[in-house]
């Protein structure tokens, strides 16, 4: 937890020399506490004090990055147990497991599928970002060759999996520049794996059976000066998996247990052989704090629900998600297709566009910027008032794309149709259904004539 200004002040030289740019040590301490100044500005603090202040002000769950560039996966940095308190920071990395004992053709097929798994939603690209490469053969040369083949083919956050430091060392030679996660240091290999991780400056996972063993290993690695760690507590069942995730997060946040202040890595496939159930365990782990979720099979039907899950849980609860203000074409609308208008609250957009799509009636959907507010709220706040709606209808250019002049407004806003007709004298305002679910029936009987 961050130190207060007074606590920091006690550790400063109290000479008020002013070299930090503010006149007194106390003023400097206050600035530090609020993040407006950096400790390096004071040349007189000792290394010990610097370490103490750094440690005390470090985030309770270490933020770290796996991979580089576009596909870098950020983990950790979480500050709350419940998403309504403050948004969850970094969605979990979904990783597909591949092994050096798999046939080349299988690996290639899995990789090409993996590349295809990309979905656009609310202007965001959703996709699994990581590959977990397993050195199951135990052969350093074979594993390194396998790693090379994969990283040459695809850009993704890499997890290297081997319990053998010598096998890991070879694989790291191939891809250390990609900042892979080294999985894993165990009780027996902590020192060797720790040294490897230090040498290549890559994050390191800790694998222990149970939290006590995990803590013993992280403690040792922290002592060696390692900072970017990831935890695997090897739970034996689903119940324990949930418990471990909760206890890790809570210990780090509430009790500042520094040995547990790291993102986690989880393997739902170790808890079941059923692929469908594996997806459900993954879905539970998304909501309950996992940092990385390694899954054994990725198909559209299991990855898509997991990506939605992650999007939902990690959405900022304080800020409604909004879609872009524009004319959306659904099902290839023509000049005699209906025109509907609604707000740009993403949920409204999804539900309305989904219903229009399922009606199979091609339509123009006008999405007006309401700052992410739903129709009724936007109307109450003056963001969906007749004059602004009229202005948008005029400037969006829809009039040039259709022959008719009929505009369907949300049923809840029936009251504004008169006013809107005054603002848009060339148009006929139609009141649509109140519930989006009734849109298909409405659209089917709609006619431009």
């Amino acid at each position, binding site marked *: 937890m961050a130190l207060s200004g007074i606590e920091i002040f006690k550790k400063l030289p109290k000479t008020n020399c002013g070299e930090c740019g503010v006149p007194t040590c106390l003023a400097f301490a206050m600035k530090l506490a609020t993040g407006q100044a950096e400790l390096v500005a004071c040349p007189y603090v000792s290394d010990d004090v610097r370490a103490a202040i750094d440690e005390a002000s470090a985030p309770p769950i270490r933020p770290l990055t796996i991979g580089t560039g576009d596909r870098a996966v950020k983990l950790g940095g979480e500050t709350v147990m*419940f998403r*309504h308190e403050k948004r969850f920071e970094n969605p979990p990395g979904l990783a597909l497991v591949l092994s050096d004992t798999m046939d080349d053709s299988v690996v290639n097929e899995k990789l090409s599928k993996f590349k295809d*798994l990309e979905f656009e939603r609310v202007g965001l690209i959703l996709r699994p970002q990581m590959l977990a490469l397993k050195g199951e053969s135990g052969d350093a040369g074979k594993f390194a060759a396998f790693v090379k083949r994969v990283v040459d083919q695809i850009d993704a956050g890499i997890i290297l999996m081997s319990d053998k430091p010598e096998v890991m060392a070879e694989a790291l030679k191939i891809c250390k520049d990609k900042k892979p996660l080294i999985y894993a240091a165990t009780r027996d290999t902590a020192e060797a794996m720790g040294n490897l991780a230090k040498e290549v400056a890559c994050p390191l996972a800790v694998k222990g059976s149970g939290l006590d063993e995990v803590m013993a290993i992280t403690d040792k690695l922290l002592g060696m000066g390692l900072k970017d760690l990831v935890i695997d507590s090897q739970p034996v069942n689903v119940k324990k998996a949930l418990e471990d995730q909760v206890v890790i997060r809570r210990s780090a946040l509430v*009790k500042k247990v520094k040995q547990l202040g790291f993102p986690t890595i989880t393997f739902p496939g170790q808890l079941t052989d059923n692929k469908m159930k594996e997806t459900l365990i993954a879905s*539970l782990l998304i909501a309950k704090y996992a940092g990385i979720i390694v899954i054994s099979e990725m198909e559209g039907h299991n*990855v898509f*629900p*997991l990506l939605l899950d992650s999007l939902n849980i990690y959405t900022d609860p304080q800020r409604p998600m909004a879609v872009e203000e524009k004319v959306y074409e659904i099902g290839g609308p023509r000049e005699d297709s209906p025109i509907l208008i609604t707000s740009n609250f993403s949920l409204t957009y999804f539900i309305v566009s989904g219903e229009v799509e*399922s009606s199979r009636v091609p339509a123009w959907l006008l999405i007006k910027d309401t700052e992410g507010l739903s129709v009724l709220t936007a109307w109450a706040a003056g963001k969906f008032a007749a004059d602004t709606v009229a202005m948008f209808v005029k400037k969006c250019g829809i009039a040039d794309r259709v022959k008719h002049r009929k505009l369907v407004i949300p049923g809840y806003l029936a009251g504004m149709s008169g006013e809107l007709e005054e603002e848009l004298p060339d148009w006929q305002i139609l009141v649509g259904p109140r519930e989006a679910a009734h849109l*298909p029936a409405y659209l089917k009987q709609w006619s431009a004539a």
Partner: protein
Amino acid sequence: MALEIPKVSYSGKIKEIVLGKGDKALTVGGETSYPFYLFEGQMSLKPRIAMEVYDSTPEDWPPAALEPFADVVSDPAAWAKKCVDTYGAEMIALQLVSTDPNGENRSAEEAAAVTKKVVEAVDVPIIIWGCNNAEKDTEVLRKIAEDCAGRNLMIGPVTEANYKQIGAVAIGYEHTVIASTPIDINLAKQLNILLGNLGVPDGRILIDPTTGSLGYGLEYCYSVMERIRMAALTQEDERLQFPMVCNLGKEVWKTKEAKQSREEAPKLGDPVKRGVLMEAATAQLLLLAGADILIMRHPEAIGLIKDMLNDLLAA
């Protein structure tokens, strides 16, 4: 190094509510910790799953959802029976969609007749879910409550607009009410206070916080449910200490992605597995947020959730 688990101290407990009557009656609630946090509390009564039955033949269901019920969709009683006999349903939820004035607008008498048949066909607890039009639901649920007096049906959605009428018949004919509010903790509490003032006993109230599907607003329900549970258990908010019901099957299966065929959405994999996983993942998240009763559709999704419940609640 032995870790001392930092525990939350819970001061509240969720009320236990009996569903249905007779041998097959169930009890839900009774939690003394956040859902499935068995390392610091109890959850001795399992969350339950009610299988959906519709009062009119569904027209817009994707093949994945229709297939398990294809032979019974036009006969609600046979449908309910199939759910119980073939799929092992522990509860039934009869969705009275055809009463909607914007749709088929079937009368209260017709709805009551269908309900009667379903109630006679199975002996498990039954939820009766109206069309979400306050006026029509009042009329329909009142008639059903009367015709099925003493059966302890779970009837809803009961809203601020019709709680007085439906609450009164629930008291009179001994049913349980599902108090429904639009994703808002304060409104949920307010409605429970009103029901209490009206005289609905605590043992006969369930909360419907309003449910959205995965990808379609689930996050809002998830957080409201977490907050309701938090207030109930740690802030002793007595009027929120009721079990929660989530009517999720219909929300999931009406989404675009649950309906699309392989041709329409080649990147989304197998349509059956996709729909099943979307429903099950939605249910899983709602359970984590505090759901006690899930209203679900697909037998496979239900099977997966039961499996997860067994794992999560294992001794």
